[in-house]
């Protein structure tokens, strides 16, 4: 650092953005400006379409008019052939944003009779460029000159001159060429167009064709060097620039619901991490898709968009099936929160699936994606290939903080934890739904095998689907064994009966005790009365005794008086007595 100011970086190569989905990312900004780029490929690989989209996007999005010089198709044929991309060439032509020129060179019409040059071509190209002030040009394909003219020496010299001239004219050119057997192009165009070379490929493997694009060379710029799958859709080319770019994504700490409250409880109380990848695996019929739909519904209820990639059933079948579990998806589809993308795996190659998923996700911009089931992809690819595709998809989703839930069909039995595709290590959370068979019936049990970054329960829950949705019920662990289904219900009933009985007994005992108490209390009352009576008796006796004593004392007194009073006289009978 000098004088506190950072030293300025060398001026980066000026690039013309192509506007083609994914291509600008691979090329780091677009094609080299004011230089020619060679696009070569076998017939039908999409060179003309790429060139046309380069011009159309340039004209519409970046304000750079362009001219398409076709050597093999007339203007009308071009319009028809590029109609699949949804471009309105006539309108663009009228707006002077785009111009198509058919340069007709027919071998049988030409006789070469001496020295000549291709100044006429230069004049034509120059006139067309000047007419609309074009900044972009496509030449499709100058190889026609080699085919029709015998003097290749002149052709080569003039082509060299042409590309120099185009540079001076400040025009970014795309030159197409047909793939040679040993060389990049049949006539060696790569000698003159050496700044940037893109190769398009359309390989067929196992009856499935896959389109691939590769930037072979890009002078002066870093670029993605791999082969990238691409699609030709009705909105233009779509390249999937996803490659495992390394694990650079940010990890979110936010949590989102799985759609089943008790499952959230098992997951540390809050649910999945946003942007994480969840695997739900299980044998056939264990309810994986239902769990996936619950997740989708939860997202929609949060007013977030969910993309449902269905590889096994059609969208309407899924919606019909889910109605029986109480999930009504039509409403979310109508509101634009839920989008189905259904495709049989065998309809295109694995890489094309990747490109299609990337395309769908880029357009719909969901917050959650369901992939149901991922194991179906093994019908169009080997296990390592599917794993590679999945790794790239996960990277792509994590980069955009999209939560992915993938279902995986296992073959059941003891090998369930093997997980057919060996992808469990790529996933952050792994939920297993398994069949528990006992007593002549099968029930479903759910448990969490792993969940990175959170404390999760290790308890099995019974996974019940009913008309009102999903329920996770505690597995009954009476007498040390885990019971599910009707065994659980039976056990519950049994225990309830026992409980009732016990209660009754207790009630009866209480009643008895009450009675005894009442009896005792009555006894006490009776005894009290006795006590009282005895006391009364005592009182009375005491009183009586007192009276008697008084009476006897009086009598004695009287007697003594009478005896004392009359000692001499024989007491007549009936003497005066004290009363």
């Amino acid at each position, binding site marked *: 650092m000098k004088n506190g100011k950072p030293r300025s970086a060398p001026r980066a190569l000026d690039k013309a953005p192509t506007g083609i989905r994914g291509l600008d990312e691979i090329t780091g900004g677009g094609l080299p400006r004011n230089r020619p780029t060679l696009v070569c490929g076998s017939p039908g690989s999409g060179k003309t379409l790429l060139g046309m989209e380069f011009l159309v996007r340039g004209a519409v999005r970046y304000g750079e008019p362009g001219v398409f010089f076709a050597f093999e198709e007339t203007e009308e044929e071009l319009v028809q052939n590029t109609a699949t991309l949804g471009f309105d060439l006539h309108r663009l032509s009228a707006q002077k944003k785009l111009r198509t020129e058919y340069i007709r060179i027919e071998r049988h019409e030409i006789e070469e009779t001496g020295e000549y040059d291709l100044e*006429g071509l230069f*004049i034509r190209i120059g*006139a067309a460029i000047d007419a609309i002030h074009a900044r972009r040009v496509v030449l499709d394909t100058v190889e026609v000159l080699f085919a029709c003219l015998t003097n290749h020496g002149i052709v080569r010299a003039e082509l060299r001159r042409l590309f120099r001239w185009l540079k001076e004219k400040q025009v970014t050119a795309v030159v197409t060429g047909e793939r040679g057997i040993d060389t990049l192009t049949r006539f060696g165009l790569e000698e003159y167009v050496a700044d940037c070379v893109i190769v398009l490929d359309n390989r067929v493997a196992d009856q499935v064709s896959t389109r691939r694009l590769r930037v072979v060379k890009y002078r002066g710029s870093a670029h993605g060097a791999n082969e990238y799958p691409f699609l030709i859709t009705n909105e233009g080319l779509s390249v999937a620039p996803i490659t495992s770019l390394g694990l650079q994504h940010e990890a979110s700490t936010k949590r989102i619901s799985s759609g089943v409250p008790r499952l959230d409880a098992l997951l540390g109380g809050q649910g999945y991490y946003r942007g994480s990848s969840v695997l739900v695996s299980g044998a056939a019929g264990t309810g994986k898709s239902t769990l996936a739909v619950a997740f989708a519904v939860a997202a929609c209820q949060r007013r977030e968009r969910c993309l449902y990639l269905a590889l096994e059933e059609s969208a309407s079948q899924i919606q019909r099936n889910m109605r029986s579990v109480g999930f009504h998806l039509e409403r979310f589809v109508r509101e634009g929160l839920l989008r189905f993308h259904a495709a049989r795996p065998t309809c295109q190659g694995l890489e094309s699936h990747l490109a299609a998923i990337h395309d769908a996700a880029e357009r719909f911009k969901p917050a959650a994606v369901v992939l149901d089931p991922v194991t179906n992809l093994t019908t169009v690819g080997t296990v390592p290939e599917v794993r590679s595709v999945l790794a790239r998809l996960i990277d792509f989703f994590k980069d955009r903080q999209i939560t992915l839930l993938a279902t995986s069909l296992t073959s059941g039995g003891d090998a369930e934890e093997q997980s057919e595709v060996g992808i469990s290590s790529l996933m952050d959370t792994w939920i297993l739904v398994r069949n528990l068979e006992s007593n002549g019936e099968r029930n479903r049990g759910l448990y969490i095998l792993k969940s990175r970054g959170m404390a999760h329960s290790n308890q099995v829950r019974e996974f019940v689907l009913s008309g009102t949705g999903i329920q996770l019920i505690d597995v009954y662990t009476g007498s040390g064994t885990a019971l599910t289904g009707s065994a659980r219900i039976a056990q519950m009933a049994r225990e309830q009966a026992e409980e009732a009985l016990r209660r009754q007994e207790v009630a009866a005992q209480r009643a008895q005790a009450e009675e005894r108490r009442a009896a005792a209390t009555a006894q006490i009352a009776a005894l009290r009365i006795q006590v009282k009576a005895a006391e009364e008796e005592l009182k009375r006796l005491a009183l009586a005794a007192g009276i008697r004593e008084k009476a006897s004392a009086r009598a004695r007194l009287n007697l003594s008086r009478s005896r004392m009073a009359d000692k001499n006289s024989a007491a007549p009978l009936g003497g005066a007595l004290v009363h």
Partner: protein
Amino acid sequence: MVVVSGRARPKRATQACNRDFWELRLYVAGQTPNCLRAFANLKQLCETHLEGKYRIQVIDLVRNPQLARGDQIFAIPTLVRKLPVPVRKIIGNLSNTEKVLVGLDLVPREG
């Protein structure tokens, strides 16, 4: 024998079906040596083989670039035989007389 240069105004071909009238157009780009040679060669050829039954138009694409489109001209110089039909195109400075004649479908005249 009319030589027109500069703004080209093709006259209506009243002798359309007449095999004996030749309408020739020479496309050039400026006054390069090649173009001059082509013109010279052409005149000589016409004098020798067509004797007054021809008309040469010289079109300078530098002055009228938009005309290159109509006749689909890419090489300079190019000679186009408009009449008699079918249209024939010959590129080069016409120094190879035999080839020119073959190209124009002319039977060489003796003398």
